[in-house]
């Protein structure tokens, strides 16, 4: 290692340079409109200078044959032979093509045409006009191979991002986010979109390998805006709008549901098969088929409450908890500076209300960036980004609202209060108090309106008063629960640092970046007295977490243009990162009032809810890279990084991550140089190794935790104990997951760069998977860390950018499509792994198959009658497998017995394709853009129908269902609770495909001469919308196919594709103004 380092140093230090006598050239650089351009780089061999504020430069050259190069970001470079001129004035043309675009790569930049890896760039044009509060959400569908999934539509919720599929079986398979060279642990949460200049995604392992152990899931590089040498420019941007639910669950009110049951019963009673059964089974006569008389009375009790006490109009919990929410975005900015110092200063505020009550997100960002030229050779960059976010979260899942029966109002009215007062226990309930199901249990229900007239049942009969319990739920009503909880999280962050660049000699730079990332999170989780049940004291949980990350990155960079078309660049670096993470949680109980809720007021501290931890993480790395350009046609890159990490045990700390790639600009070959419609044809291939270290801290050592017990007389004396962990076994030999990826790419530009295509094909193998491997439970711990098996991802990505129309009416399109396929190649010596979700549904990882597949019983409609069951000759020990009106399980192995051997693969969560298209139109001062985005293929397990109350009154589950043998509905829809557990079958596996009109943006730029008159440089008005159209697949019975559960067992990467209680998709409209002066 160190030898290698020395070798590199020798190369650096041995490079000499010389100077000759020369002549001086001066001139001015202007743009196509004649305006001077400051900061243009003027290069002669090793020397370079930049133009001043007036676009003027002066540089010394050798002789008349000397060549000057003028380059500036966003403009086509020009090369001029000096000749006899002493003054050379240049007009730079803005580059419309990507040919000379500069892309940010790890630890540097590269010209687009020289890129040999697979790097996608997304420039921030209207990103800050998108009506979402997070950058990751705004990137959905924009970059090929980058899949963004809004797993929750709650305000400020994290989106799930994956680059090129899942290269790891860890939960931490999200890409590394690097902002201005600084890896940010919490990703894109706190970033202000308005500050972003560009987003680059390093997709292939060769590009990401320079980030070593953190690169396996791809790297997202964010470059923030910098100041430019100019007089001060100010900008102000304001937008506001509102959002609402795109779609709600299709629920029946209690009355509608009882009507359905009555009509079904009427049909059922005409069926001779049921009549025959009725002689032995009186339950057939009850409202529910096979339901008891008690259940019938309970159902009717709810019907009576709704009709006699709520005026026949049930309470719609879903509508009450969802709202038209506001969205607000305010941005201020100032940039400018002189050659010696440039600045970029911004302040941004975003207020994003969730469409559910108690869901709010606010973000405040400041960014100050100075580029200071301390001397000709020494440049200093200072970057400070304080931020503040505040997030209020609802305590209740939306499921708890939409599934709630409509007969129960959330507050008692005069009638319901008087009614429940009959029960001595609830004699003190008053109108306006929260109404809970338990208040209504055991009372006698009279079908009589307040005026004394009779309430008839839907079939015209009268109901004999009976005791009932319209709901047996022991929970508080969800609205009461929501309003009695306050969950507020605040986060204070500071991303900042300095970068000192010392130009040692022409082309040879030493750069040291020293940064700090400080984050202080606090959360206060408050529960009112009685909110979680009668007699439960109020509770305040204080949580705080401080995260201090110190990073030093030191690089030496040597760049040498050997001649006009050959150049070499060397990079050598050393980085060290130290992170301290301290957190405490304190639970105080029994406060004197809901207002005085600081810990000093708590009557006592709940020890079982009080914890602390203090840990440190370290990462030490050495890296090097060589870029070589030959004849401007052949591009070679090789890099190497070695990482040492505290995540692993003493013998396994170090990992190495080499990579190499080559590119060939075929269009520059003589045989193609005359093809005038061909502007660019690049072929690229790369191979590299990157790693993944996102594992729990100290997974290499078993730790003990407190486990106390009491001994002795009386109630005993607390005695301290220490116990080994119960969840997952340590493994001292665990080490890096390594991803080996090969990438083949092609870039094609034709017809004057009007059509640009980028194609990438990749094949990656992840080895030594860091797995929480299921182990035998009788060993005492059901999981253990291990490096086993390997996983393959392969796929392709196509990006297409076209300029369809030029002139007054402009039209351009950018589209992308990606396909990725993952396969388990090996799982240690195991044939498969099974993992269970919260409903006992099974996720199988099997060698040769995708990472996760749903495993359960295939169904073929429902059993229509007992006769049909008898005729099938099947037997089963499975609970309720053979019931008419219930699901019909397929006897996969054909042995005549339905048992666990009939389980099979019933789907997988992975899409076949993800795609996005953005069209931009402009006509004179108007512009319009819209983005479509979609996911094709892939399935989900819909957990909504698990509970009786979530499926019984849901039209998506009770339309066309089985009623009786003669009236089997569509023959596919089972009846309520009858028969086999749906959650174990493919009946709940649904197509998760969708496409959406993600964004529409219509803007108007006021004419320049007009705005100048009022002292502005530009003025723009715009309106934009999100999710104005959303189409999900036919078989899908929920409201948001993107929704996923990610907590509890679903935190594991080996359990994927489960959804329960998905949040509705927000439909957003925003109006904005953008002023520059």
């Amino acid at each position: 290692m160190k030898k290698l380092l020395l070798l590199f140093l020798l190369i650096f230090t041995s490079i000499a340079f010389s100077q000759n006598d020369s002549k001086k050239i001066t001139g001015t650089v202007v743009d196509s409109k004649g305006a001077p351009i400051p900061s243009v780089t003027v290069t002669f061999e090793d020397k370079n200078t930049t133009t001043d504020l007036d676009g003027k430069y002066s540089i010394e050259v050798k002789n008349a044959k000397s060549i000057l190069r003028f380059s500036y970001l966003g403009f086509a470079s020009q090369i001029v032979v000096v000749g006899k001129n002493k003054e050379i004035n240049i007009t730079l043309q803005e580059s419309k093509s990507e040919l000379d675009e500069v892309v940010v790569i790890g630890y540097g930049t590269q010209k687009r045409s020289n890129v040999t890896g697979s790097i996608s760039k997304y420039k921030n044009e209207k990103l800050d006009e998108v009506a979402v509060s997070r950058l990751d959400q705004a990137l959905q569908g924009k970059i090929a191979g980058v899949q963004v999934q809004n797993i929750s539509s709650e305000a400020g919720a994290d989106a799930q991002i994956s680059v090129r599929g899942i290269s790891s079986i860890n939960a931490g398979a999200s890409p590394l986010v690097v902002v201005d060279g600084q890896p940010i642990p919490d990703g894109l949460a706190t970033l202000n979109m308005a500050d972003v200049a560009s987003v680059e995604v390093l997709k292939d392992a060769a590009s990401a390998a320079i980030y070593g152990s953190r690169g396996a899931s791809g790297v997202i590089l964010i470059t923030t805006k910098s100041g430019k040498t100019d007089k001060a420019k100010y900008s102000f941007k304001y937008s506001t709008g509102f959002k609402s639910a795109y779609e709600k669950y299709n629920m029946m009110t209690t009355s509608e549901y009882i009507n359905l049951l009555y009509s079904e019963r009427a049909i059922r009673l005409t069926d001779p098969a049921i009549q025959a059964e009725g002689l032995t089974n009186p339950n057939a006569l009850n409202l529910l088929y096979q339901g008891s008389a008690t259940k019938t009375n309970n159902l009717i009790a709810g019907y009576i409450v709704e009709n006699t006490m709520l005026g026949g109009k049930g309470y719609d919990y879903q509508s009450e908890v969802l709202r038209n929410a506001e969205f607000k975005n305010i941005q201020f900015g100032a940039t400018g500076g002189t050659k010696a110092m440039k600045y970029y200063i911004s302040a941004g505020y975003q207020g994003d209300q969730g469409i559910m009550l108690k869901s709010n997100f606010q973000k405040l960002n400041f960014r100050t960036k100075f580029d200071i030229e301390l001397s000709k050779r020494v440049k200093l960059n200072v970057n400070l980004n304080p931020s503040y976010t505040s997030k209020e979260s609802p305590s209740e899942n939306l499921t708890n609202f939409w599934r709630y029966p409509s007969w129960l109002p959330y507050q008692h009215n005069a009638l319901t209060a008087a009614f429940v007062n009959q029960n001595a226990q609830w004699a003190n309930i008053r109108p306006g108090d929260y109404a809970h199901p338990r208040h209504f249990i055991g009372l006698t229900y009279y079908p009589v309106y307040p005026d004394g007239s009779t309430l008839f049942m839907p079939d015209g009969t009268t109901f004999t008063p009976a005791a009932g319990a319209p709901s047996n739920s022991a929970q508080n009503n969800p609205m009461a629960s929501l309003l009695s909880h306050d969950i507020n999280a605040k986060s204070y962050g500071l991303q900042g640092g300095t970068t000192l660049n010392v130009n040692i000699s022409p082309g040879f730079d030493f750069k040291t970046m020293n940064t700090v990332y400080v984050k202080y999170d606090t959360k206060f989780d408050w529960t009112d007295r009685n909110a979680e049940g009668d007699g439960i004291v109020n509770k305040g949980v204080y949580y705080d977490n401080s995260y201090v990350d110190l990073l030093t990155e030191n690089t030496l960079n040597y760049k040498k243009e050997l001649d006009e078309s050959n150049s070499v660049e060397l990079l050598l670096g050393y980085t060290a990162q130290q992170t301290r993470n301290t957190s405490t949680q304190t639970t105080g109980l029994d406060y004197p009032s809901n207002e005085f809720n600081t810990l000093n007021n708590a009557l006592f501290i709940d020890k079982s809810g009080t914890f602390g931890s203090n840990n440190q993480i370290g990462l030490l790395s050495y890296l090097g890279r060589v870029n070589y350009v030959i004849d401007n046609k052949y591009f070679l890159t090789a890099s190497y990084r070695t990482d040492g990490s505290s995540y692993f045990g003493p013998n396994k700390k170090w990992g190495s991550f080499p990579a190499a790639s080559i590119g060939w600009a075929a269009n520059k070959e003589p045989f193609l140089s005359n093809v005038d419609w061909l502007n660019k044809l690049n072929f690229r291939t790369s191979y590299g190794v990157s790693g993944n270290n996102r594992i729990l801290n100290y997974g290499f050592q078993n730790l003990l935790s407190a486990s106390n017990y009491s001994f002795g007389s009386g109630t005993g004396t607390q005695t301290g104990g220490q116990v080994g962990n119960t969840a997952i076994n340590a493994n001292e030999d665990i080490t890096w997951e390594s991803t080996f990826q090969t990438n083949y790419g092609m870039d094609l530009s034709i017809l004057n760069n009007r059509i640009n295509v980028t194609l990438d094909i990749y094949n990656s193998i992840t080895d030594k998977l860091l797995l929480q491997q299921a182990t035998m439970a009788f060993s005492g711990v059901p999981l253990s860390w291990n490096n086993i098996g390997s996983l393959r991802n392969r796929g392709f990505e196509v990006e297409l950018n076209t300029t369809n129309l030029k002139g007054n009416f402009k039209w351009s399109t950018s589209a992308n499509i990606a396909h990725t396929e993952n396969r388990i190649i090996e799982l240690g010596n195991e044939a498969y792994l099974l993992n269970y979700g919260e409903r006992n549904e099974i996720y199988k990882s099997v060698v040769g198959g995708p990472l996760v597949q749903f495993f359960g019983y295939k169904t073929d409609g429902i059993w229509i009658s007992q006769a049909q069951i008898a005729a099938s000759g099947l037997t089963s020990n499975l609970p309720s497998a053979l019931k008419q009106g219930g699901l019909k399980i397929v006897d996969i192995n054909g042995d005549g017995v339905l048992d666990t051997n009939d389980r099979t693969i019933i789907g997988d969560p992975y899409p076949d394709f993800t795609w996005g298209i953005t069209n931009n139109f402009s006509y004179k001062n108007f512009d319009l853009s819209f983005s479509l985005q979609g996911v094709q293929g892939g399935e989900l397990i819909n957990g909504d129908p698990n509970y009786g109350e979530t499926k019984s009154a849901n039209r998506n589950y009770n339309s066309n269902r089985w009623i009786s043998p003669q009236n089997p509905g569509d023959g596919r829809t089972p009846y309520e609770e009858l028969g086999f557990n749906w959650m174990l079958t493919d009946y709940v596996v649904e197509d998760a495909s969708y496409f959406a009109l993600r964004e529409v943006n219509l803007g108007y730029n006021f004419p320049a001469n007009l705005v100048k008159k009022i002292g502005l440089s530009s003025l723009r008005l715009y309106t934009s919308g999100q999710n104005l159209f959303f189409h999900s697949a036919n078989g899908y019975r929920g409201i948001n196919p993107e929704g996923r559960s990610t907590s509890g067992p679903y935190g594991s990467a080996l359990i994927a594709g489960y959804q329960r209680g998905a949040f509705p998709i927000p439909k957003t409209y925003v109006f904005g103004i953008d002023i520059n002066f």
Partner: protein
Amino acid sequence: MKNSIKYLSVLFLVVASSCSDIIDLNSESNIIASDYYKNYTELQSGLTACYKGMQDPLVEEWSLTELRSDNTVMDGGSSTSTPNHDLAFLDQFYPPTTHQGLYKYWLKSYNNIKNCNTVLNACGANFNPSPGVIEYAPVTIDATSSQCKSIAAEASFIRAHHYFNLVRLYGGVFLIDEPITPEQAKRINRTTVSDIYKLIVSDLNNTIANGNSSSYNASSQDLGRANVWAAKALLAKVYLTLGRNSEASALLDSVIASSGYSLQSNYGSVFSINNEMNSEILFAIRYKGGGLGMGNPLPNLFAPTNTGNAVINGDGKGYNTPTSELLNQFTASATVVDKRREFNIGEFAKYTSKTTVATTTAVLTLTSLNNIKVGQFVSGLGITGSTKKVKTINAALNQVTLSATVTVPANTTVSFFTSVYPNKYTSPTVLAFDAENDVPVLRYSDVLLMKAEADGNTTASKDLINLIRRRAGLADIVSFASQDAFEKALSLERKLEFAFENQRWFDLLRFNATFQNAANKAEGVMDAHFTALWSTVYSTFSVLPVTAAELQANSNPNRYLLPIPQYEIDTNSFITIPQNPGY
């Protein structure tokens, strides 16, 4: 210039090579296991954790024992939540092999077995199966040989306790007697029932040989620890289960003669939180309330649903509901009520009748008979005690006859109890799932009744049973007509004495071997139980509507054992783990 390059390069090298301690980090918040269990204090804290580990399986244990017996039923059968589904399946003898509760019990038991194995291993105590003894390796840590042995004696008892429950619930389970790696575990298959018992007997003999043999002392700071007497009593129960009655009898004699344990004069004081670890408790799993993370969760599981804070703060889940059969058995006759009833059964008036009463004797004339059933308990002004229940209903006259004479003033509002629940472990709490009450494992009355069981139908045995009966306020039994009558009486006495102490199911299985009359055997008892309760309980389950005949078919001897958790079978792709028959 070249100098500055040199300086920079040197600086670069110096910085680059001097920071490897950045990554040599260890946990700062938790003790590292591999550095632990190296001295007596550390062994003790490991042992303390083994005691704590006994609490975890109790969250499920009642559902695998009481709920499956004729003692309790699943009251919340109409709910469709996953835990209620699972409990209904157990109650109906139809647990799917993927059932979460029986997997959790399995995992928690084996987790604590692992804790015990770790401590035993650190003490140098190893199980040698061929002679069936625990042997000690020379001590290599900072503790004396006798310190190691005393620690190992207690850990052995805890391990035996878990294996004894596992073998009775799941049959021949996996015999793990030392710390094993995940790789080793995948090569281990099930063992035989007799091999498991061999380990249990060896462990308990280890406790007897090396444990604390001091007699009971109410102020000892060791109360709650497993001692020689607890081990002898547990081993006696093991021997009774194995049919080795004479060996059991000898052990019990020793406990009765020299342990210092004795019966409490009052049944209720055995379970009082003001009298914990009293002279009757040979071993209990202890809890401590007050927000310490050491509280007893059972009262909140057992309290009736939707009772607000009337029974316990935080409401109840309504699990483990006493059957009407059990309630009836607590009523010895129309005039004599078992004193144990009120300490076992709580009653909650879910429903207050608006009914007013117009008579003053045992016959109440009500304004409405809605929701009133035979067997319900009645309270109201003038009605004292909790034993008055509806004997008959005369719908024509709107009258109910109570089981005992009461005097009720006219126009009194009368409450009819619709919910009964086990209140053995209920005490006032601030937090939910955080009660103080200990759960007894071995009581002195168990010792006495086991002694009677071991010796069979003798006069001495009859006297022991009468000793227990007298405390319960019941008349002495004069003689038993037959061995079966003796066993039946003993079985009933145990049922009432140890209600909700997770003994009933194991008793049913144990008496299976000796009962002559098929109706008294487990299958007969369960058939009668399903017949009696089908119409009021099982027919109301929404999860799995079954007939009484189907229930009776379910409770066949093949299903007396629980299935090996499917998870365990599925996880091992190397060897095939045989499932218990019937699943």
